[in-house]
């Protein structure tokens, strides 16, 4: 019976949707965007994949937000940093209210941060708050009392946070959605099931109106939002997993905005109206494995810096943009532009002649075979084939490609079984620290497994430096060590964010962290 009801429901949905759309379109300003898959969750404490990006930022706000890479006031109208740079005092806007009219208070942040850090929540991004005094111990379960974590509401509109040590980039942490506030009464009422239409309250420009699993998510304008009201009445996020299908939907006018489309189409699409390129903080790199568990001959050869240098010198990175057809720019520093610490003068440049000399110095035998671990995606395969041809051409190295599905690939990366691998890093917060700290000796994201105590020391030193020019100098110095001297990785290219934006849409902003700002979007009547 239940199934019969569901089928009837599915049929009804057909009707309602068909009629609903036909009647509502003329009066309602609707902006349709594409999600690449089903969001894992809309619970902002737990959401951690790029798919949730567009929705989180549109639904909700944190203490501060990002305009491009600059931190701006959001729910907090201002903040003060103490002289020792460890205490942050945020003043929350008086007119900031939730979508049900209840004022946003400092207590709401406490509720959210406590939940984010609680071991039972098992939130992946809990570590974002580890710089706060007592936070790490609370997450480890060593400290059960949350009052020992230095997050204190001084009054209903003032929140004070105390860090263990000064951290220069800390102000970018509360821009991330995992730190967005939560209402205690809503959590108590619905538990982990709060992030659903009819239950979720938001304090951002839009609110969650409807969620059809595997199909679409509809957001409506939040009339209680403190800031400028968005000009679009409704946002429809269509879940379209297949790239080609998404492209067809754009071409038939059913999508206003999409990113990520089939690689071979980029060239022909660059002529289509609506084609736009946005900067993106993402570096794709070639890594070398430093901690082989079962060293083979190839892994022993790769420990030789001359061989790594020879490989780095024999890849002509200026050709990658042409090969991948996605407007990629050749990589130099690991930190991508426009962040401080990025520079064109760091990193090994293409030089086949010197590469051969380095190869000779490495004393590796001629025609050696090396394996490279890659994802089985079309783009990575194309890139790996290019590297394969370059190494064959300039050094006579036989590179064997080892493509795997995503999960197997991640498991293989942890095993360090392949001397070479291709991977990427994209920013969580716009700071060079977010890039370079992955090479800390104890970081789980240190994929090469390279350990260097002086590098670690410099990272921690730079974190505490107040002057940005001093920090920049140190970041450049670190990367000379990482890229020129030790050749731990070879930054191959910086990935831009390519998007198709329907020409009827104006005022759309996409920041380098792939945060979509829909507040300023206007839709002209004529399609």
């Amino acid at each position, binding site marked *: 019976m*239940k*199934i019969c009801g*569901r*089928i009837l*429901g*599915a*049929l009804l949905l*057909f*009707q309602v*949707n*068909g009629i609903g759309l036909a009647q509502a379109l003329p009066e309602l300003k609707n902006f349709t965007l594409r999600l690449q898959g*089903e969001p*894992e*969750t809309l619970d902002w404490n*737990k959401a*951690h*994949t790029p798919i949730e990006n567009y929705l989180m930022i549109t639904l909700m706000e944190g203490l501060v937000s990002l305009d491009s890479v600059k931190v701006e006031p959001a729910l907090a109208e201002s903040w003060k940093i103490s002289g020792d740079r460890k205490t942050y005092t945020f003043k929350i806007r008086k007119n900031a209210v939730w979508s049900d009219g209840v004022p946003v208070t400092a207590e709401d942040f406490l509720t959210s941060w406590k939940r984010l850090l609680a*071991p*039972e*929540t*098992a*939130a*992946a991004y*809990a*570590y974002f708050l*580890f710089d706060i005094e007592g936070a*790490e111990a609370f*997450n*480890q*379960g060593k400290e059960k009392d949350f009052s020992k974590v230095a997050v204190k509401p001084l009054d209903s509109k003032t929140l004070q946070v105390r860090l263990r040590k000064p951290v220069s980039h800390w102000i970018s942490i509360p821009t991330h959605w995992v730190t967005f506030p939560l209402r205690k009464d809503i959590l108590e009422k619905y538990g982990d*099931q709060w*992030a659903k239409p009819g239950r979720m309250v938001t304090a951002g420009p839009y609110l969650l109106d409807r969620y*059809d*699993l*595997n*199909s679409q998510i509809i957001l409506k304008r939040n009339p209680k939002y403190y800031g400028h009201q968005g000009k679009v009445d409704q946002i429809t996020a*269509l*879940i*379209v*997993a*297949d790239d*080609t*299908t998404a492209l*067809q*939907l754009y*071409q*038939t006018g*059913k999508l206003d905005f999409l990113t990520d489309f089939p690689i071979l189409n980029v060239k022909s699409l660059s002529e289509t109206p609506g084609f736009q390129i946005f900067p993106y903080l993402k570096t794709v790199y070639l890594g070398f494995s430093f901690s082989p568990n079962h060293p083979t001959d190839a892994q022993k050869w790769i420990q030789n810096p001359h061989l790594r240098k020879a490989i780095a010198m024999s890849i002509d990175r200026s050709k990658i943009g042409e090969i991948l057809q996605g407007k990629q720019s050749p990589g130099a520093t690991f930190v991508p532009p426009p962040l401080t610490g990025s520079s064109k003068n760091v990193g090994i440049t293409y030089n086949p002649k010197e590469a051969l000399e380095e190869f000779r110095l490495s004393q590796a035998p001629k025609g050696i075979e090396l394996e490279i671990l890659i994802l089985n995606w079309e783009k990575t395969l194309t890139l790996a084939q290019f590297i394969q041809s370059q190494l064959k051409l300039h050094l006579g190295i036989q590179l064997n490609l080892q493509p795997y*599905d*995503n*999960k*197997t690939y*991640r*498991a*293989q990366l*942890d095993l360090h079984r392949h001397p070479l691998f291709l991977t990427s890093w*994209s920013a969580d917060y716009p700071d060079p620290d977010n890039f370079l700290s992955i090479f800390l000796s104890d*970081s*789980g*994201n240190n994929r090469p497994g390279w350990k260097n105590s002086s590098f670690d020391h410099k990272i921690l030193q730079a974190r505490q430096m107040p002057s940005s020019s001093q920090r920049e100098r140190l970041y450049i110095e670190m990367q000379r060590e990482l890229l020129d001297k030790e050749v731990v990785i070879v930054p191959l290219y910086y990935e831009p964010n390519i998007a198709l934006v329907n020409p009827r849409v104006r005022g759309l902003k996409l920041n380098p962290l792939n945060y979509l700002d829909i507040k300023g979007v206007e839709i002209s009547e004529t399609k």
Partner: protein
Amino acid sequence: MLRYFIKRLLFSIPSLLVFLIALFFLLRLAPGGPFDGEQVWPPEVQANILKKYHLDQPLHRQLTEWLIQLGHGDLNESFQYLGKPVTEILAETFPVSLLLGTLALGVCISVGIFFGGIAAWRQGSLADRLLLFISSVSISLPVFLIASVLVLIFSLQLKWLPPALWEGPSSAILPVLALSWRPSAIVFQLTRSTLIESLRSDFVRTARGKGVPEYGIIFKHALKNALIPVLGALGPIAANLVTGSFLVELIFQIPGMGKYFVHAVLNRDYPLVMGVTLLYGGILILTHILVDLAYALVDPRIRLGESL
């Protein structure tokens, strides 16, 4: 007949369970876990995640827990869609696949049997040879090619039908066509060949001798006999169609459960894989039993229950 049905249903439970237990262990052999992603979380965060989802428990305990929950009708929460119970995911997506699959099954049976009848009736004619050629080509065409060609012609060129999405009756036409294309060809070929055989049998000769018109011989007398092998093939075809097709649902962006067959495995979403497989296994068994029941309706010589 009802007794036979219930008996068969009960007998199939142990086989389904053995199948699920084997799957449970096979899944864990695949490298990588459900929470491995682009980033590696700090060890304490990882420990919290493993604890919350009971992945730190020994395998046999995880299995017992799953079986106990299954006994309570609970399939656990998905590891990928956090906070979403697997039963809820199936309840929301299966009806869509069921609707699409039933429509496709309808098309497949009517088209396959109708044209199979025509081809057998006019065996050796131009129509028969043409149909045979089309069906042979159709069987060897992959579904994504059929779907893409349909979209190219009817959506992008002629602009008659939407290229994707599940928005109204018109959006069901192309996916139903794509989904039923290949099975229709299979049913056509089976019907044609068994019908030709049964047209040569004695009872057809008798009917002809009595002066029964040719269409009556084909669609009334011979077809009933010829349907038995077709019914046998329809069991698995029906199970495949109603549980959704990964490719058709992906290409047309249909919110069915077909895509979980592939995605849940790739994401190592253990509870969802188990749930999807349980449903698929159940339906497969159910369609087999229904086919057996249908045999008895078509052929009175088959007496149900006697062999049991």
